[in-house]
Structure formats: C-alpha cells, structure tokens
C-alpha cells in the first residue's frame, strides 16, 4: 500500500520552477551555494534571503516541507553558531564572563554562518523538491559528461544515484511493513530506554538488510535481462531541452550572486 513518502523529497506539483531544465537548476543551485560563501554583508544576505523566499513561494511547495528539510541540520547549526560566538575574538567585546567572552565579530560571524547553512539547505531543498529524481540524475550526468573523456564514470555515477533515490521510498515502505509485522508479534518500539529501543530494532534491521541485498540482486538481473550494458551507446527516452527560460533563470541566478557579493 501507499505509505508516507516523507523521504522522497520530490514534490510533484506544477510550478515555474518545476518546468525548468534540471541542468539549469543544478547550475543555479551551485552558483547560489558558492555565492552564499562569498557574501559578507547584511545587504547581501538580505538580497539572497529575499530571493530564496520568493523562489520557495514560486515553487508551490508548502513552506512546511522546507522546515522539514531544515530540522535535521538545526542541531549542527546551533552547535556551530555557539562555537563561533564563544571562541571568536574579533571586534569589540560585548560580554565578558571570565573565561567566556562574546565579541561583536563573533556574534555577527555566528549569525551569518547560521544564515548561510539554512539558506544553503533551503536552496538544495528547492532543487530536490522541484526536480524529479530521474531528471536530476540525468542533469548531473550531462553536466559531468565532458569528464567522460578522462574516464570519469559519469553514466555509472548517475545510474547509481538514480537507483539509490528510486529505492529510498521502497526501503522506507519495506521498513514500515517489517516494523508492523514485528509489532504484530508484540514488539513495542516506543517503550524503554535507548538501549532497549535499539535492541527492538534488531528484528527489523536483519530482514531489511537481507531484503535489500535480495532486491539488489534481482534488480541487477532484471536490468541485464533487458539488455543493460552500461552507458556506452545508450540513448535517452526523454531528451531534456535547454530553452530560453532556462538561460534566463541561469542569468538571473548569476546576477543575484554578483549583486549579493558586491553590495
């Protein structure tokens, strides 16, 4: 049965962002990511934040989904900010509690760093939420294909990524099914301390791993029996087209980055 797909991040709705070519989106995301590390002014951060918020709105993906992407990094962000604030000795001293000193530079640096990570994750989330996994990996393969001459396995890398992404929801569903089957045999996954709960996971992890290996074998055989022999001479069912609007989107992303760095 259809289970929750919290892990398949692609959010299939129609929006201007969903309609863009994957390659344009990957490049634009890359530019924004680099830009985020070059930006060093309040105005620059305001500009990029505003653009990201606008893009989230344009993607028609519920904002709550992005909060979901941010949740796993929240702890790391908090930790980095704490270190930055406590151990940076730049600028004027704001507080001084003996061993602990908070400096102006540290506080600003910490806030910028937090903003940087949150914007980075949101931007990456925009890419995966608006791009179907297959289009995404096709895009990566295309962008990496110049490296094929250097024997870089671009096709294999893209195929492996596609398969991995494809099987996240499947494994998730399988894990849920096995969890329920063991719950039907009396396992209570919600009670007891961390050690007891970890032990309760064993009856799920063993069959899940065995199943994953079996599935991998079956997939390899199915692919071979349908004539798959690697990327050599393989054509595409859906050839992506790079249109004017993709070029415009790229140019706009470049402008935003340059603008953000210069202001």
């Amino acid at each position, binding site marked *: *049965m*259809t289970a929750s797909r919290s892990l398949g991040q692609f959010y*299939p709705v129609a929006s201007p962002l969903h309609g863009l070519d994957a390659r344009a989106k990957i490049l634009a995301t890359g530019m924004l990511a680099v830009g985020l590390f070059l930006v060093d002014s309040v105005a620059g951060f305001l500009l990029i934040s505003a653009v990201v918020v606008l893009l989230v709105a344009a993607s028609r993906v519920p904002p709550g989904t992005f909060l979901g992407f941010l949740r796993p990094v929240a702890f790391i962000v908090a930790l980095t900010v704490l270190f930055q604030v406590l151990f940076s000795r730049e600028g004027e001293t704001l507080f001084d509690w003996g061993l602990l000193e908070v400096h102006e530079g540290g506080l600003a640096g910490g806030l910028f760093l937090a903003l940087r990570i949150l914007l980075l994750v949101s931007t990456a989330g925009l890419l995966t939420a608006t791009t179907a996994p297959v289009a995404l990996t096709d895009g990566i393969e295309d962008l990496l294909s110049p490296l094929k001459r250097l024997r870089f396995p671009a096709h294999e890398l893209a195929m492996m990524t596609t398969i991995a992404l494809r099987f996240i929801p499947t494994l998730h569903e399988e894990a849920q*099914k096995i969890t329920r089957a063991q719950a039907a045999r*009396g396992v209570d996954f919600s009670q007891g301390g961390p050690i007891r709960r970890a032990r309760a996971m064993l009856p799920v992890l063993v069959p899940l791993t065995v199943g994953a290996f079996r599935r991998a074998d079956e997939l390899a055989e199915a692919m071979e029996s349908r004539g798959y022999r690697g990327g050599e001479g393989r054509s595409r069912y859906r050839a992506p087209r790079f249109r004017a609007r993709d070029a415009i989107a790229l140019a706009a992303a470049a402008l935003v980055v340059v603008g953000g760095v210069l202001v």
Partner: protein
Amino acid sequence: MRIELEDVRHVYAPGTPFEVEALRGVSLAVEADGVLGIVGGTGSGKSTLAQHLNLLLAPTSGRVLVDGADARMLKGGELRRRVGLVFQHPEAALFAPTVEEDVAFAPSRLGLGEEETRRRVRETLELLGASHLAGRAPHALSGGEKRRVAIAGVLAMAPEVLVLDEPTAGLDPATGEDLLGIVRALRDGGTSIVVISHDLDEVAEVADRVCILEGGEVRAAGTPEEVFYAHPEASLAPATVRTASILRDPYPEVGKPVRFEETLAALNGLLEGRG
C-alpha cells in the same frame, strides 16, 4: 472475541499530493468463531482493513469495537496478542538464527516461562507440519517452508482471532492446499479466522462467511451462498458457482453448491438422476 468495524475510513498521507483514501466507510463483523473470507482486487483496501483489526493502523474516522467496547481500551500489547495478524509474504520478517528462536520470539515476550514457551513452539510447529525445520536457519528454507514458519511465529501467541493476509500468495498449489487444511483445523479448534485473498476459489473452499471489498467499500457480505449466487458474474464468483449457476437454468435440482466437493456431488446427482 468478536471484532466489529463501524464505518471505518482510512486515509493515507492526508493533505499531501500522495493522499489515498483506502477505506471509505467499512462496516463489518468478525464473529468469535468460523472463517470470514474477505475478497477484493488489488487496491480494494484489503491489507489496510487487516491492519485495523489489531489497530496497527488507527481509523481516520469510525470505530473498531472488541466485544462491544472500543478496541483502544485494551492495554498495550493485549489486542496484538489476542488478534494474530499474519502479513502478506510474512517470511520477509523472519530474522532469528534458527526457526525455533524465530517462532519463540512472540511467546517469549508474554512472560510464559521457558518451559511453556518451548511447549508452544513445539506444538505450533507440529500443527503447521514444520517440526523437522526447528533447528534450521530461516533464510535457507524454501518459500513454502518459510511461510509455514512465519505463520507459526504469530500462531505461537495463541491468538483468539487469526488474520491471514493472502496466505497462499506465491506458493505452489500443494502447499497452498496444506495451508487451507491448517486453517480448517484451527477453525475446528475454536479459533476465529479471517482469510484475506484475491482468490475467490480459495475463499469459497474455506469461508463460512464472505465479504467482498471493492474500492474501499463493502460491496456484498453474507454467507458464501448468498453473496456468490447474488452476483454470479465471472469477476465476483468462484468457478464452482459460475458453473452451477449456468446449469441451474435448465436443471434447478443442481441447487447452490459453493465448495468443490459440494459442486461435484451436485453434478454427480444430476448425472445419476438422468442415468
């Protein structure tokens, strides 16, 4: 125990583009004895329904009653122990190093003591004709053997109601036949059984009551005779009923047989009468 579903609806992933309404107001009763057959095609909501019988899934709306009281009133694992649920392809959840340990997994958490647990494991394996497998590793067994062991793993809790989701799916006919024999033996021993299947012929052989599920709704329910002879079209009746309902037109003395043996006897009677 008697389980009742009252206007149960279940919606997966509500409020997202993946939203699916799997059950659209299902009301039915699982009596304290006998075999209830639930039939329906893929996507009819059978497996979702099965998981409501021990509240692994909670209804989005509607109620599940056990002996007239809300099933949520039962404490923690009690409902799961009293209603044994065997999932489709249950062998996917085998994990212990030996068959014996896997079957002992559920009863050993009931606080029965080692001796009683051993006795249950032995008896359950015997009932399923799998005693000779006790010391083997589950992953090294054949498909049919794994299925027996997996069913034993639930049956060892001595549930009052046993729910089997597609028990014979992917098995050879002989093993499937054996399993249906085990279902009959358990029924005769007083266990209430729910067999969920897409196979009308299989359900016709074992069911005392039948419920046809379609698109998350109950399309028909009652005795096999009532349900199958009300709609003898190909997709809703077993081969025996289709055959007999064609013959009934010229020869009403055929009656309304459902099981294979009954149908055979009716046809023999017909032939002898005309001898």
